[in-house]
C-alpha cells in the first residue's frame, strides 16, 4: 500500500518543507530565551520574504537577497524592541500589531514585483557524496539554505550552552531583575536577541519567496510564522528539540500528502491538527516551570 513512497525522498522533502519554519523558530527561540515573547513572527517572516525578493531581483543574487531579507526583518523587529523595551508596551499586543503591520507593509512594498521570477539558488554540489544510497539524497542533495539553517541551530545551541554571552542571555530570560542587579544591561541584550529573531524570521520568509515558491505573492507565508511559535514551545526552548519539532511538523505535512498520493484515505484535517495536539501534550508533560522565567513580562529598571 505504501509502495510508492520512497523513504529517502520523504526525508529529503520534509527537510526542505521544514526549513522556513525552522529558521523562524530558531530566531524566536533565542528571543524567548531572553524572556521576550514576540508574536509578530508572521509579520517579520513576510517582510523578510518581500525584502529578500526585491533585493534578489535588483541585484540578481539570491545570496544578497537573503542578506537583505535578514536586514529588513531585523529592522522591523527593532520597532517591536523599541516599543516593548523602551516604551514598555505589552508584548502580546505589540507582537500582534507587528504582524498586522508587517502584512500591510509587505504587500505595499511588493506591489510592483508580482509575477516576477526570482534568480534561483542552485543546489550545493557534493560530487560523489550525493550518489550514496539513501544518505546521499537526504544529506547531500539540498540548497545552501538548508545547511545554513542547520548551522544556525548548531550555532545557537553552542552559544547558549558554552558561551558567556549565552549564559547572560539565559539569565536575563530567567530573571531579569536578578540579571539587572548583577549589572547586565537587560534592555540591550533583549534588543540584540529581538533583532536576531527578526533576522532569522526574515531568512525563513525569504526561503519561501526565493527558493520554495519562488515568487512574490501577497500573504505567501500563510501562517508559517504561527507554526514557528508552536515549534518553539514544542521544543521546550531547546535548539536540538526544535530541529526535531520542525522536522516533525514538516514531516506531518509531507507524510499526509504522500499518503494521499498513495491512495490511502486519511482524514486530512485530523492529521493536520495532530502536531498541535502533540505540542500541547509535550507542554503538559514538560510543564512545571520549563518556560523562561521572565517570558512575556515587561522589564523596567526602577533605579
Amino acid at each position, binding site marked *: 500500500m505504501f509502495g510508492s513512497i520512497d523513504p529517502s525522498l520523504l526525508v529529503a522533502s520534509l527537510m526542505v518543507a521544514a526549513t522556513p519554519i525552522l529558521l523562524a523558530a530558531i530566531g524566536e527561540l533565542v528571543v524567548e530565551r531572553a524572556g521576550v*515573547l514576540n*508574536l509578530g513572527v508572521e509579520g517579520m517572516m513576510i517582510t523578510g520574504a518581500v525584502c529578500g525578493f526585491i533585493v534578489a531581483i535588483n541585484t540578481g543574487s539570491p545570496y544578497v537577497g537573503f542578506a537583505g531579507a535578514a536586514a529588513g526583518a531585523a529592522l522591523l523587529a527593532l*520597532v517591536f524592541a523599541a*516599543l516593548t523595551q523602551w*516604551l*514598555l*508596551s*505589552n508584548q*502580546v*499586543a*505589540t507582537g*500582534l*500589531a*507587528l504582524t*498586522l*503591520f*508587517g*502584512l*500591510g*507593509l*509587505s*504587500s*505595499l512594498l511588493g*506591489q510592483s514585483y508580482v509575477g516576477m521570477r526570482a534568480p534561483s539558488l542552485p543546489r550545493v554540489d557534493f560530487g560523489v557524496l550525493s550518489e550514496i544510497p539513501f544518505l546521499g539524497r537526504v544529506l547531500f542533495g539540498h540548497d545552501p539554505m538548508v545547511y545554513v539553517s542547520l548551522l544556525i541551530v548548531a550555532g545557537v545551541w553552542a552559544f547558549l550552552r558554552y558561551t558567556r554571552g549565552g549564559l547572560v542571555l539565559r539569565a536575563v530570560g530567567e530573571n531579569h531583575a536578578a540579571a539587572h542587579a548583577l549589572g547586565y544591561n537587560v534592555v540591550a541584550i533583549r534588543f540584540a536577541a529581538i533583532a536576531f529573531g527578526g533576522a532569522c524570521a526574515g531568512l525563513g520568509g525569504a526561503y519561501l519567496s526565493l527558493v520554495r515558491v519562488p515568487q512574490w505573492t*501577497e500573504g505567501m507565508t500563510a501562517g508559517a510564522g*504561527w*507554526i514557528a*511559535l*508552536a515549534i518553539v*514551545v514544542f521544543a521546550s526552548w531547546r535548539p536540538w528539540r526544535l530541529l526535531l519539532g520542525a522536522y516533525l511538523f514538516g514531516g506531518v505535512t509531507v507524510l499526509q500528502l504522500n499518503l494521499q498520493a498513495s491512495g490511502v484515505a486519511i*482524514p486530512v*484535517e*485530523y492529521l*493536520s*491538527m495532530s502536531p*498541535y*495536539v502533540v*505540542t*500541547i501534550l509535550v*507542554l*503538559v508533560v514538560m*510543564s*512545571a*516551570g520549563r*518556560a523562561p522565567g521572565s517570558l*512575556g513580562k515587561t522589564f*523596567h529598571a*526602577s533605579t
Partner: protein
Amino acid sequence: MIRLERRPQPSTFWTWLTPLLAVALTVVFGGVLFAMLGKDPLVAIRTIFFDPLFSQFASFYRPQLLVKGAPLVLIAIGLSFGFRAGVWNIGAEGQYIIGALCGAAVALALYPMEARWLIFPLMILFGALGGLGWAMIPGLLKVRFGTNEILVSLMLVYVAEQLLAAMALGPLRNPEGMGFPGSRNLTQYDSATSWIDRAGGMHWGVITAFLAVILAYVVMSRHILGFQIRLAGQSPRAAAFSGVNPGGLVLICLGTSGALAGLAGMFEVSGPAGQVSIDFNVGYGFTAIIVAFLGRLHPVGILLAGGLMALTYIGGEIAQSQLQLPAAAIQLFQGMLLFFLLAVDVLTHFRVRLRHREVA
C-alpha cells in the same frame, strides 16, 4: 538621557489624552503614507475617520459600526478579566470558532423545526458552553499541571481551525448546497437567526456586547471578584494571602473569556456571517486582544476601542473603493495606529525625566 519613573498611580490625565495623541500621530504619519501613494492625505484621513460617521450615507455606515464592533467588544471584555488577573488567553479565536460550531450545530440538527423559543436559547447555551469548554482545556491544564496557558490556547486555535474545515466540508455541510463546502444559511432560518433589525445593524450579539460592558463594569468596580482579579494581577502573592484561590481565579477568567468568545462566534455565524464556512472566522479573536489593550482593559475603554477599530475597518473600505487606496495601505495604517497607541501608553504609567548622573 531620558529616564522613566513609574508613577504611583496611573495618570488620569494621560489615560484620556494618550489615545488622542496616538490618533494624532497616526493621522500625521498616515497622511505622509497616503501622500506617498499619490493620494490627497486630507481626503484619505477624512474618508477613514469621518465619512463613516458624518457623510451623506452615514446613516447607513453607523449601524455597520455595531455589526463590526460588537464581536470585538464582546470578546475583548471577556479577555480583559483574564488580562487584568495575569491570565493570558490569546486563543479567543479558537473559542470563537468552537462556540460558533456548537451553536450552529444545534440549529442545523433541529432544522427545519419552527420553534424560536427553544432553538435560539439552546444555541446561545451551546455557543457559550462550546467556547467555555474550549477555554477550559488551557485552564485545567494550567491549574492541574502548570502548563503555560498562552501557548496552549494559541495551539488550540489551529486545532479549532482544522475542526472548522472538517465540519464545513463534512457533517455541517449544506445538503442542498450542490456539494460546495459550507452549512445552510442560518439567517434564512427564522428560528435560528440572531438578527433583530438587519438594516439597523441590530442583532443579539450587539445587545449582548452592551450588556457585557455594563456587567463587566459592575463586577470590576463593585464586586469582590473584580477586587480579587485586580489584586491577583498586581500582586499574586498578596492575592494568595488574602484568600484568593489562584486556580479558581484562572478557571473563572478563562471560562468567562471563552464563554463570551463562544457567544460572539455563535451570534456572528447565525447573523452577519450567516453560515459555517471554511473561513468564516476573520480574526476577531486576535483583533480583540488589541482592542482589549487599547481600551486599557477597562469596560468603557474597550467599548470605545472597539468602536475605533470598527471605524478604521469601515472607513478603510470606503477609502479603498472611493480613493482606490490599496487594502495593504489600510492594514499598514491600522498597524501604525496600534503601534502609536501602545507607544504613548507609557506616559500613563511613567513620568519622563531627564536623567541626572546618580551616585551608585
